């Protein structure tokens, strides 16, 4: 399996960042970067990462099924993550989640029909001071209200 030159370069750097024999430590970042490029973690990718870090595909599967940020199915171009953990919940994060679901007509880990936006209800993302918070791909949005959420989602639609 081959990747873009940029990703290959990143993998090379990653594999050299760990002491000899500890290459398996590169597994999670490799999966994340590859997921960004491929859209999801495919079976082929699992085998490839396993081969490169020297573990079995099953061991890669153990790791990737543990972490919620690694996905076996493709997500939308914009992955919207809404926190409903305690701090956000106290600031109406649950209502925000319901609003998002209603607006987009999709639920947890689902993708809109046009493949542009996906939703995920997540646990604490460490933004409690600015609750309720959401995350779009790698960017945070703070103090989100239903109105602000509408704007953000509409903005994403336009960008797409």
């Amino acid at each position, binding site marked *: 399996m081959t990747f873009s030159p940029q990703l290959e370069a990143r993998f090379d750097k990653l594999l050299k960042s760990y002491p000899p024999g500890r290459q398996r430590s590169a597994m999670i970042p490799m999966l994340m970067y590859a997921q960004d490029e491929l859209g999801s973690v495919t079976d082929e990718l699992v085998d490839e990462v396993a081969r490169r870090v020297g573990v079995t595909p*099953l061991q890669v599967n153990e790791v990737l*099924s543990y972490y919620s940020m690694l996905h076996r199915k493709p997500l939308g171009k914009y992955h919207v993550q809404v926190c409903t953990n305690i701090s956000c919940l106290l600031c109406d994060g649950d209502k925000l989640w319901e609003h998002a679901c209603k607006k987009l007509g999709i639920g947890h880990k689902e993708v809109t029909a046009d493949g542009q936006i996906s939703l995920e209800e997540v646990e604490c993302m460490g933004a409690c001071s600015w609750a309720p918070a959401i995350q779009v791909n790698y960017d945070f949005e703070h103090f989100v209200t239903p109105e602000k959420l509408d704007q953000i989602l509409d903005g994403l639609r336009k960008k797409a």
Partner: protein
Amino acid sequence: MPDLVKLTIDGKAVQAAPGTLVIDAAKMAGIEIPAFCYYEGLTLQAACRMCLVEVEKMPKMMTACTLPVAEGMVVRTETPQVAQARKYTLEFLLTNHPLDCPVCDKGGECELQDMVFRYGAGESRYTEEKVHTPEKQFSPVVFFDAPRCILCFRCVRICNEGMGVGALGVIYRGVLSEIAPNHGDHLECDECGACIDICPVGALTSGIYRYQTRPWEMQHVGAICTHCGDGCKTTLGVRNNRIIRGNNRDHSGINGEFLCIKGRYAFDFYDHPERLQAPLVRKNGKLEEVSWSEALDTVANRFNQIRADGGTFGVIGSNHTTNEENFYLRKFAREVLATPHIDHHRTGDVTALVDALSGKTGRMATVADLYNRKAVLVLGADLAREHPLLSFQIRANYRHHQAHVYAVTPGPVREDKYAVASVRVASGGYFAALEDLRARLKAEPELVIVFDDSFKGPDVHRLVEFGESLGIPVRYICLVDYSNSRGALDMGLVPGEGGMRLDEMLAADLSALWVVGANPFKGTPGVPGSVARKARFLVVQDLFLTETAEQADVVLPAASAYEKSGTVTNTTGEVQRLKRAINTMGAKPDLEIMGFIARQMGAAGALGPWVPETVFAEIRRTVHGYDIPLPEIDTGGAAPTTPVNGRVTEAGGPRPDLIRSDHNGLFASGTLGRYSKVLNSVLEGRLDR
């Protein structure tokens, strides 16, 4: 010997070597600390929290399974706090456990059941709906019931570490965590079933055993696996004259708890629909079922007739029958039939090894040596496929003692993963490869050399010369194929002066050929069609109508290894006792059959009683190296034989070209393997023969 560490457990003064875990130190002092995930010999997990104990000056309770002893440590294992922790741990483990004990295979021998009985709460505060997932079939032998699983990781570790396969893992997290096989929805592995045996609950169950019985309804009989030459003890669970399961959970025998698919499951040939249950005699060209007395009379009369006419007999013995049977057969051939033509299928050149080691003692390695010695050199064989116990021992030696393993083989082997040197050789390239390794081998404190039929005749002598030239203590193992290949040789199933060898007998015009438990007419592997018989009268004793039996004039249905008592000698020359587990209607142990033939011939007096114990007593008196301590084998252990210390000569000189191993993989076992449903049902069996 480092100084012992002194500590106190429950008020008892305890001494233990540095590095000992508190759980083990307590066990040595007779104090049981309960645990699920802790398993002697495997890596530590600390997953189950069952072994929590109080340690003075430590703020929280500690897991005794990961805590090494320290000087002056004060441990308490029976305080109210500990009792409460155990109770809560069990309550937690039971939150999603279905408590379907009445229909669970494990019920009655379940560690979770026992722990709850001893330490658990009678009630649960958990009122929510339990998470349930349907059971899955990983392979014909492995089933998985996720809700019963307590996530102790024992199965994952035994597969990774013990077997070196790594076919099981844990996927997802939290309450959804479950055991997963290596190929999506199914397993591709050794199918050894170690994961099932090691499971403390009924999460992993056996396709062969599930829903067959309640464990307390079985009787447990210690037998020796009849397949490969490693001689694993398999404890057969028997009910109503049927074998229901095989395992070795009591760790008795040279294999500890290790068993491969053959030892654990491939006993199932015994009730194959094609099993012979009545003697057959050829009448008008067709084999017809007759009574035992008619069949025995037919053989005895014909044998007596040939004796009177001065005809020649050929006798071919077996690699599967017991020492007693082989001994009796040889005596029968030599003393009653007065023939030197006696042989068996040789699968390794043990004779050459013993010959090359003449004058030296204590040079034959045992199964235990592969675990204890500091270095092992594997030549030729893919041990994980052909001799799984030996491979297991070497792996354990590497894990526990960091033993140096050298693998010099034609193809990749499982030992490569941890070997200090892996060398690929073409046939004939062994000695060059050994010379390259000489300096490194010389630097080892000691060595065990394991070789298969890549080394025969002069090559064995040359190998021993190489070993002796290293200047370090070297022990040897010559690999042979079947459960009693060594015994067949030791009991003298070899040609006498002027005697014909097996291949010569098949081609010779003999008055009678008597084949006991072998299939010499099956032909060459890979070539269809069997060899046609030449002998004028052919008597065959076997379990099935093999290619050889099909051509016979008289076929006598024989009992399998699990249906008779006696002793067998494994590939490392260790003797173990077989105990009869069941009887199969119509079949008789070969010893009994031979005894009856002798009686009908009026020759029984010369051969003595055909009782295994009596024959074994004679073996101990007369066969060199078999004067072994009886208590050892009577208590289920293995006693190493001490082979002839002196030149071994074979009439007619050595014929290494006639020695060939069948190289059975994990899912094949010569002719017998064809009749095992399990060996033929697993996916890997079809891929790998």
